């Protein structure tokens, strides 16, 4: 007879696949991707304006484009996906199935991140090809691209967390806020020393540790200038980012389980 309810893995995979297919159809995705590819191409033109290391411009712009468009895609596509489903009540019949809500959200995450990963791979391929054509080895850029992917894990997790909590406009705003704050968290350390002793200092320290420190995941200038990294840095940074991402996804799952569908 019919099985009564699916395993966690199979439902996450099923929903992930479905989400992937849905995200692939979002036109915003293609818009952003094409724009990113154009920018990478344009960097070739920009390099004509500079004196000296022309490849540096291409690498800088390329990595910046991959990172920035990755984040934009994570936020806009991610937020709109969840919103559309709720708005159009597609989600009602899904939640009536014997699938735990947390599995549902985990599946969404898997699907969404797969699309982002695909995006990163496509953009990186374009960038790497451009460099290879010019006779420059692109492989040193790989660690930076890898950590950009890790950064996207965290941003996507936040996008899903906020989508479960509030409307799409606020979700996007909050996710961007976290992204910006994560890149500027080092300034909290500077602020801590300038601020008078007491609660303010604790707040600064607390926020610094709580916010995702995206600077740690940012190897763009390291790879472009060929700077040496301490041993095991990439592993540590990946562990930091992925661990953080897991926690935020768990939070998102919790938020989604508590959600009421009016």
């Amino acid at each position, binding site marked *: 007879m*019919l099985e009564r309810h699916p395993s966690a893995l199979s439902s996450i995979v099923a*929903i992930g696949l479905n989400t992937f297919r849905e995200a692939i159809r979002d036109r915003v995705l293609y818009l952003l991707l094409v724009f990113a590819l154009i920018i990478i191409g344009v960097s070739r033109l920009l390099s004509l304006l500079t004196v000296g290391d022309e490849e540096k411009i291409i690498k800088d712009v390329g990595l910046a484009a991959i990172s920035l468009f990755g984040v934009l895609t994570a936020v806009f596509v991610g937020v709109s996906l969840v919103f559309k489903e709720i708005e159009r009540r597609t989600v*009602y019949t899904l939640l*009536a199935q014997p699938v735990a809500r947390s599995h549902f959200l985990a599946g969404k995450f898997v699907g969404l991140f797969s699309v982002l990963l695909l995006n990163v791979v496509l953009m990186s391929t374009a960038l790497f090809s451009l460099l290879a054509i010019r006779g420059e080895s692109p492989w040193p850029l790989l660690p930076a691209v890898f950590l950009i992917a890790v950064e996207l894990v965290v941003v996507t997790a936040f996008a899903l967390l906020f989508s479960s909590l509030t409307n799409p406009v606020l979700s996007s705003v909050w996710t961007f806020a976290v992204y910006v704050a994560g890149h500027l968290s080092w300034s909290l350390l500077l602020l801590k020393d300038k601020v008078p002793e007491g609660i303010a200092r604790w707040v600064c320290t607390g926020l610094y540790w709580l916010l995702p420190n995206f600077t740690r995941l940012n190897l763009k200038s390291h790879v472009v200038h060929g700077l040496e990294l301490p041993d095991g840095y990439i592993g540590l940074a990946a562990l930091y980012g992925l661990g953080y991402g897991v926690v935020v996804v768990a939070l998102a799952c919790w938020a989604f389980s508590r959600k009421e569908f009016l």
Partner: protein
Amino acid sequence: MASEVAALSIAGLRKGFSGHLGIGRRTAVDGVDLSIRQGEIFGLLGPNGAGKTTTIKMVLGLLRPDEGEIRMFGMPSSDRAARARLGYLPENPYFYDYLTAREFLDFYARLQGVSSADRGPLVDRTLERVGLAGRADTALRKFSKGMTQRLGLAQAIQHEPDLVILDEPMSGLDPQGRREVRDLILELRDSGKTVFFSSHILQDAEMICDRVGILKAGRLISSGLLDELVSDTVRWFEVMVAGTLPAGVESEREAGRENEHLVRVPDVEALRELLDLVHAGEGQVVSVWPRRDTLEDLFLAQTLGDKPGA
């Protein structure tokens, strides 16, 4: 056939919503108790805004009740095992545009835990049951409202759930569509399933329900077997007479067409008298309509506070 455990039992259900910016509070569902036996068709009726959809959402776990308990086949409704025995169709459903009917049902079958070997044949069978076999590979964005509704029913019944919950299943359908849905619901009951649906189309409910409940402003003001609530006896007759009325006969009101009058008589005796009079005079009897209490009368009486009849 029906066993002891209720298919669905709701006790003391309450749900309130806070108003905008936390000001004010509106109680959507105010103490609802109902029990549906296995193998019966239950209709939850009521005007718009009565709380039907809110109640159903709470049964489905889409909303959390403030108070009360919901059980399905004896299990708490939040159990996954309970949801496995459940099929649901929301009001005005909308599904993924880009999937075909087949892909759509296949996805839902996966979520139900059907193995890959069984999925294909199951989907085919289901498409046949709802009459969409010819459109198996059409993209959902090309579906008409009626076809979408049928597909919605398909996913609700595909896994042979013991309890099927339908929120306004007839809405937006033409008479043909509504007939098909009614037939499907009857079919489900005949194969031992329990059906719980909400509607504001009373005629449909009257035709197929075993039991009804009338919801008004969050309260269940009437509930019970349809046969008990709505009696079968003739209350009065309405006779349409064309031409001049016999002397002494008053018309209830003027009918639409010229020279047509509507006369009401309280029983068979009075009816015979009237027919004789008309026959003897210059008028003609156009139609005779025996009026029974309909669900609509009951409904209007309950919701507006008038008594049925005159």
